């Protein structure tokens, strides 16, 4: 059996920027002293004239990107999710969201997979925050292949986009030639009739593993990769509600306001069935190796399996 390739989506992000930088001369990249961590360094190496380090000043970086966008540039700004979405919320809302400027926010180090840095750097709220801004597109790619597709789609999309990336290495399961990526269209990775698991980001692969475990218990779980949280693929969600009658959402983020809330809102409005939100349950994270934290917070395959079993 060949070894499965693993790569962190932040690393894929840097590689994707460097790739598409060649195709899109208006693409510019800004960072706030974290280029080595957010992996925008890869773009910097390829296109030093189109890379701008703003230093440790995320708010200013956000405003500069807004100004660049008014002049026809396609700016990507990068920092850790805590600063890109958290510290910057109002700058993103007022300087990018309100004028609907063509700025892309590449936020890395989201969720508890940040690991050892602990709660201050583990942003669990970014999906919820960004989702509340009118006109903001929110995408959480699941693997290397999907990151390339998502970055390309973000460049081609006119308007603000928030992209969420992880620090932790995750398995690559999409084949580049077979992935059909479209903003706002979820991907059904596994058919099933008993329940539906709607996952995003690094949780997609864990959810596939959990579905395998459920299968052994005779539970047929449908698994959907909901890479775009906003605009949500409501059609796919309602279809799942109608056909499987029960939905579980899985995200490496707070259960308040993110993917789970988006799905629950849609289901409550259009076809009410039980929706169980799996994520971080209204607590702050903590320091530790990321894999241990995922286990502790029941967000790895076993944890997801256990949480689903408890609600069946």
């Amino acid at each position, binding site marked *: 059996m060949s070894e499965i390739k693993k790569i962190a989506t932040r690393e894929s992000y840097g590689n994707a920027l460097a790739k598409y930088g060649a195709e899109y001369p208006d693409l*510019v990249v800004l960072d706030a002293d974290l280029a080595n961590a957010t992996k925008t360094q890869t773009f910097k190496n390829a296109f030093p*004239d*189109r890379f*701008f380090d*703003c*230093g440790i*000043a995320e*708010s*200013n*970086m*956000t*405003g*500069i*990107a*807004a*100004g*660049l*966008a*008014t*002049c*026809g*540039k396609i*700016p990507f700004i990068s920092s850790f999710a805590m600063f890109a979405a958290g510290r910057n919320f*109002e*700058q993103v809302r*007022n*300087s990018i969201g*309100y*004028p*609907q400027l063509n700025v892309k926010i590449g936020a890395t180090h989201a969720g508890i997979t940040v690991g050892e840095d602990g709660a201050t750097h583990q942003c669990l709220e970014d999906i919820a925050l960004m989702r509340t801004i009118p006109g903001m597109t929110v995408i959480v790619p699941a693997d290397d292949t999907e990151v390339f597709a998502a970055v390309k789609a973000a460049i081609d999309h006119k308007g603000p986009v928030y992209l969420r990336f992880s620090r932790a290495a995750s398995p690559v399961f999409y084949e580049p030639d077979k992935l059909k990526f479209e903003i706002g269209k979820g991907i059904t990775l596994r058919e099933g009739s008993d329940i539906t698991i709607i996952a995003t980001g690094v949780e997609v692969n864990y959810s596939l593993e959990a579905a395998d475990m459920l299968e052994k218990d005779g539970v047929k779980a449908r698994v959907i990769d909901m890479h775009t949280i906003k605009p949500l693929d409501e059609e796919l969600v309602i279809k799942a509600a109608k056909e499987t009658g029960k939905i579980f959402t899985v995200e490496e983020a707070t259960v308040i306001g993110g993917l789970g809330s988006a799905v629950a809102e849609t289901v409550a409005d259009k076809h009410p069935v039980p929706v169980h939100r799996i994520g971080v349950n209204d607590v702050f994270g903590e320091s530790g190796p990321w894999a241990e934290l995922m286990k502790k917070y029941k967000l790895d395959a076993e944890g997801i399996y256990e949480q689903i079993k408890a609600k069946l």
Partner: protein
Amino acid sequence: MTTKELQKTANEVRKGIITAVHAAKSGHPGGSLSSADIFTYLFFAEMNVDPKDPKKADRDRFVLSKGHNAPGLYSVLAEKGYFPKKDLETLRHTGSYLQGHPDMKHIPGVDMSSGSLGQGLSAAVGMALAAKIDKKSYRTYCLCGDGEIQEGQIWEAAMFAGAKKLDNLCVIVDNNNLQIDGPIDEVNSPYPIDKKFEAFNFHVINIDGNNMDEIKKAFDEAKTVKGVPTAIIAKTVKGKGVSFMENKAGWHGKAPNDEEFATAMSDLEKVGKGL
């Protein structure tokens, strides 16, 4: 335009401010009036802009970082011909495109949406940076409030502009010395403003911001400066031109009633006749 013509235009801009804020029954006359001479000089003498082609690629850019002075910006835009002066009376009305704070999506001549203090200068820096990337010659102007520069983001932006040698950027600080809670040096003093911008590697020019000749001299000088951005610290009178509004913090964000409106317009008529 001659100095006299510019002064007359500035007086018309002031009338537009009073008319708009009176019709809106809210808004910010004080700072709009203190900045009226700078607005007028920028749009009638300094900037390469065309009201018939508001988005032309090589235009000079303007960002009103102190976005609450929208009545001042709208009045000068209307005076310049971007939209009918009559529309000023719809300021802040439901359904009007003249929003309480500048809205680039709907108002011709507005290059950046602004209003949340501290954010506009960063956008102006982005515009100046875009010109450098594209090797274009347009300049970017940004008007900040003296209270506004209490916001930390202003200094993040200033640090970047100085470090990246954005000599195509000109920041103007409307130093009318008053903010909502009182004199700026009593609330949380940003003085000395000139020394701060100097420390951030700006070329600094101190002027009387209600004197058209000094305004002209400052902008002419700024264009000759190479390798560093320029900051013009413009000492102004809040409420300038309207007797009962001058130097009163209370007129920062308050509309005149009908009687006060009549007095204000009569004050400005007198100023106009004297020119």
